[in-house]
């Protein structure tokens, strides 16, 4: 910024708004944590201070593990997210590499199609997709979501990787070709290793998107033991009109934990992906 600000201006211009942003962004998490750590007697006591915990208790966490398939759902979510991310990265590279680095007829048209495909939301396709999956006899299986998530993630990964592939100078590839390498070798040994940050960005992003997906999981995963966390929590922890808030908040917090942990290790790449391609959300 231009010039040094005096401390009252810095207080009003930086610390107060920053504090407000922190409260706005993070209070739901504090509420989740506070709720999940209170036994029902305290939780539903109208006289108690709602933002304070008098008698911390792990009862909701214990119930969550003992009475529901929560651990299985976490495992399913991770498995599905991992597999669909790997498929999407592989297909994304195959799509992005020629579009970014080769000259051939229809390249421009294909690049535009990828961009359009990226913008097509699952909300538009879920009716025919449900029918398609049922006719393929894949309904109620993890394969159904492992196959359908990449339809959202492949265009995204390809779009992000095209940007990365374009930053590598063409001379590097030409030098490898002159030295006798085939195009395949030039790609796998020269260009792709240089784009590792791009793979990390696309991968971490695809992974968080896959963890977040709900509509296809809602359509395709009916049996309790093959559900992912979002459908498990909304489908089974909310029983009719009765809300078990303590258990629900424990599930919301624990269900968010894996993706937050992975995100915290790769924040730099996540933000790079966010700002490089603009994102679903």
């Amino acid at each position: 910024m231009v010039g040094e600000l005096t401390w009252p201006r810095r207080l009003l211009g930086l610390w107060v708004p920053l504090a407000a942003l922190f409260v706005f962004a993070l209070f739901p998490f504090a509420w989740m944590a506070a709720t999940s750590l209170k036994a029902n007697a305290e939780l539903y006591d109208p006289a108690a201070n709602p933002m304070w915990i008098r008698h911390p208790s792990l009862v909701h966490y214990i119930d969550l593990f003992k009475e529901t398939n929560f651990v299985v759902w976490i495992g399913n979510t991770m498995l599905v997210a991992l597999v669909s991310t790997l498929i999407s990265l592989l297909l994304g590279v195959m799509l992005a590499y020629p579009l970014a680095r080769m000259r051939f007829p229809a390249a421009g048209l294909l690049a535009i199609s990828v961009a359009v495909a990226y913008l097509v939301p699952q909300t538009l396709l879920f009716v025919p997709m449900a029918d398609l999956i049922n006719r393929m006899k894949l309904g109620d299986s993890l394969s159904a979501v492992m196959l359908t998530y990449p339809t959202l993630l492949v265009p995204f990964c390809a779009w992000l990787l095209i940007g990365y592939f374009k930053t590598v100078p063409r001379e590097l590839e030409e030098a490898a070709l002159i030295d006798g390498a085939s195009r395949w070798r030039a790609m796998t040994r020269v260009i792709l290793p240089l784009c590792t940050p791009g793979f990390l960005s696309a991968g971490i992003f695809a992974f968080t998107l896959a963890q977040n997906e709900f509509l296809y999981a809602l359509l395709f995963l009916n049996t309790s033991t093959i559900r992912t966390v979002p459908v498990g929590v909304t489908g089974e922890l909310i029983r009719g009109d009765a809300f078990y808030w303590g258990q629900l908040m424990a599930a919301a917090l624990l269900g968010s934990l894996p993706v937050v942990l992975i995100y915290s290790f790769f924040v730099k790449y996540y933000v790079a992906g966010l700002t490089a391609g603009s994102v679903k959300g």
Partner: protein
Amino acid sequence: MSTNPVLEAARPAARAVPVRRAFQLREWLEREAVFSWLMLTPPLLFLLAFLGYPFCYGVYLSFVRRPVAQPATFVGLGNFVNLWSDSIFWQAVWNTFRFTGAATVLKLVGGLGMALVMHQNFRMKGVTRALLLLPFIVPTVLSTVAWQWILDPGMGMFNRILMYVGLVTQGPSWLGNPTLALVSVILVNTWRGLPFFGITILAGLQTIPTELMETATIDGAGSWQRFRYVTLPLLMPVIFIVTTFSIIFTFFDFQLVYVLTGGGPANATHLMATYAYSISMGGGQMGLGSAAALAMVPMLGLVLVAMSSYVRKA
């Protein structure tokens, strides 16, 4: 193939044919178009099968009447005619526009503010950025369930605090009153999407050279003038991209409303996506539901046209 040099030298013509054919195959594989299409075919087939085909099939479905597990009968534009005279459908359309408009404005203004605040020198900037982005990272369904509890009329956080400080004896029914329910849905969408705007616009701010600001200051521009005539014009491309993306994904939103209100009370928060879902999955009418989903396509087309004309201008 023979490796004896003497033998091969003695029969040059016989040697030349097979070697030359192998050479040509390799040459052919090395051509840019051939190599490209070999790479492109598998992902393109995948996208055609699971994106292109469902889209075309959805268009077909919108022209038939097809209750679950029964054969389809062609009804032409019948489904669209039915939707046209369906007051709940129009309510969902109107809700979708209000929801998208209000949430986008709030996210844009708030995100711009967040970016300007963050674009100052202070310690632990990286950690701050990572923490403020959390609402965007956490699975939407899980944070929305938390919001449902925050907005609970009896024991939710908002009403508990209102009652605890003695402001009211009984808090409002945030998700039970039609107007408040729509406000709540907009609020939760804003909460989740604002950091995305903030962090992306911040990245745009960081690309503006400081020399420009210094020159403007020397020329006598105040802080508002610097923002209005230097910062904002240079930020426009970033703002345009973020906003168009956000409009699309807010317009097509499903999970937030499905979890928070289920479209209620009395359809007051139904969006086109949740209504299409309730027609096709709840009501079992695949054709009509597919038509309701396809009714969102014009909006997608409109945004794509706006985007491409902007890109062409720039």
